[in-house]
């Protein structure tokens, strides 16, 4: 069953008088439970594709279906609800809320979902334990290393049981050891919880971990390989 279906997706950015074709007729299907990397050089359209799948950006043409929802027909509020219920994000720059502790950052999405306080706390602690941060509940982002912050970001992304986790260059700011540990953790989550992970990356290590590798160049899919697990 496909959880994401992109059909003839186009996205053009206007930079001054210059037209930049970020995505040029991209069609892509992603199955539920996939662990997929979208690779390509800078400017190939990886992040744009991820943003469009996550409802952060809107395609100029084409059709994007996420867990049965046609994104082009949805309002900003409906897209926010879709992101809240079905999509988890892991950003390159972690993007944790600076004034909240690790535990509160993980709780935050559940709070928006209306999960009761006690359950929220319990689940947040459990997921932080899973990502190896059981002794750092009360630390603020500034008191965590890059790797620890990214673990909190992953915990935040998966704690609400989304259908998809979109990770935009999640290892870009991490050393290789921390990056590998993070990828192992995400792979484990993928296997344990059957969450679909979609990475944008140009990190070889991420590409090697991915079960499927889609290559983009100049806004077009130029390769699509399934790796042996």
């Amino acid at each position, binding site marked *: 069953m496909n959880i994401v279906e992109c059909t003839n997706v186009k996205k053009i950015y206007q930079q001054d008088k210059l037209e930049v074709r970020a995505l040029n007729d991209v069609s892509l299907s992603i199955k539920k439970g996939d662990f997929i990397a979208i690779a390509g050089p800078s400017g190939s359209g990886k992040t744009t594709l991820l*943003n469009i799948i*996550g409802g*952060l*950006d809107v395609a100029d043409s084409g059709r994007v279906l996420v867990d049965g929802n046609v994104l082009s027909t949805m309002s*900003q*509020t409906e897209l*926010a*609800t879709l*992101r*809240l*219920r079905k*999509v988890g*994000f892991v*950003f390159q720059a972690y*993007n944790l*809320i*600076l*004034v*909240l502790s690790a535990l*509160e950052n993980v*709780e*935050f*999405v559940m*709070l*928006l*979902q209306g999960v009761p306080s006690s359950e929220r706390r319990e689940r947040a602690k459990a997921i932080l334990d899973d990502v190896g941060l059981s002794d750092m509940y009360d630390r603020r982002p500034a008191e965590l290393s890059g790797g620890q912050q990214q673990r909190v970001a992953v915990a*935040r992304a998966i704690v609400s049981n989304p259908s998809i986790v979109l990770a935009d260059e999640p290892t870009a700011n991490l050393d290789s050891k921390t990056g590998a540990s993070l990828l192992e953790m995400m792979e484990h989550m993928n296997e344990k919880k059957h969450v679909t992970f979609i990475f944008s990356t140009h990190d070889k290590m991420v590409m090697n971990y991915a079960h499927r590798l889609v290559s983009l160049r100049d806004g077009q899919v130029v390769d699509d390989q399934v790796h042996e697990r």
Partner: protein
Amino acid sequence: MYFRLGWRNIWRNPRRTLVIMTAVIIGVWSMIFLGSLMRGIADQMVRNGIATLTGHIQVHHNGYRNDPVIENSMTDPEAVETALKRSLPPDSRWSSRVRVNAIASNARHSSGVTLVGIDPQRETKISFIGGAVIQGRYMNPDSRNGIVVGKALVDKFKTKLGRKLVLMSRDTDGEIASRAFRIVGIFNAETEATEKRFVFVTLPAAQQMLKLEKGISEVSVTLSSQQEVHQVAHDLRAGLPSDKYEIHTWQELLPLVTAVLKMYDGFIYLWFLVVFIAMGFGIVNTILMAVFERIREFGLLNALGMKPGWIIREVLTESFFLLILGMLIGNSLGFLSFFALSGNGIDLSSLAAGMEYFGMSRVIYPIIQGKDVVMANLVVFILGLVVSLYPAVKAARFTPVEALAHT
């Protein structure tokens, strides 16, 4: 979590938070404190007016108010007394007076004055004169030639205690009545105009001089509560024939004060609005700065699934804290200033000459009215949140992609 997030966010930039809080504090303080001064001025005006021979209610012969000549005196004071005893609440007080325009003169000076014949014992309980004598003595009930005059008149006439003062006025026969009095007391009043205007003799002395027999010009009534004024006036009107007597409340007797009171109400609320407009710009500007500094964060919140309405709520929560903190401190300072000055008041003697034309006192005692405090806080709180909506809506309109790309 909204409250936790809002509270922590406002302390991310303590200096900015303190700046905006200072604006709110000064705004609320000035609304409450300056409002209390204006109320104090208005209250003093009313008190002065009432104490300066007006009282809460006055009874006159029909036509006296329009033409206060001696012919319009009340010749049958017993009928009025009977009606007063029937209509007045037990703790109220009243006094009869003769009140006519006269000329006061001594060897060197003369001046127009109001001659007031009083019952010294009754008068002391209802008007300022009983406690206002600063030199000499208050009048005895049986004093035939004693006169009590204001300090400003004494200074003007360059006279002193024990000296003679001649009063001239028209008597009931239409003839000029003249009589010499000896100054037995000098009084001090809230306003210099009062000191120059009124001279007091006993009621029998005035009646004799003006050939009034038992006649009086007015009866002044004071009540224990202002709330009773209209009911008592209504009862008196019902108890006395309207073709012979007219009854006026202090609001009718002091039209200038009544008009100024109404004007003050408008001034106070206008002042609140002016202060708020100045403060409102500060609030909008500071919150807008805070929002633009955190564009990326609002993009993140949106990306995480925070709907635009929730982002608006989040920004308003921060404003809520800033306003509540500012209001708490502003109110405290307002009340502290009030308590600090409520004992001794603010002495405006240097401005008294100009102020007394409006019946204002030399010393202003601030008065806090609950409705002003509530109004000041409501203005700041509600309008503060309303103006915060602009930056809040701005924050909610950032698209996640643009906001997250913002550096």
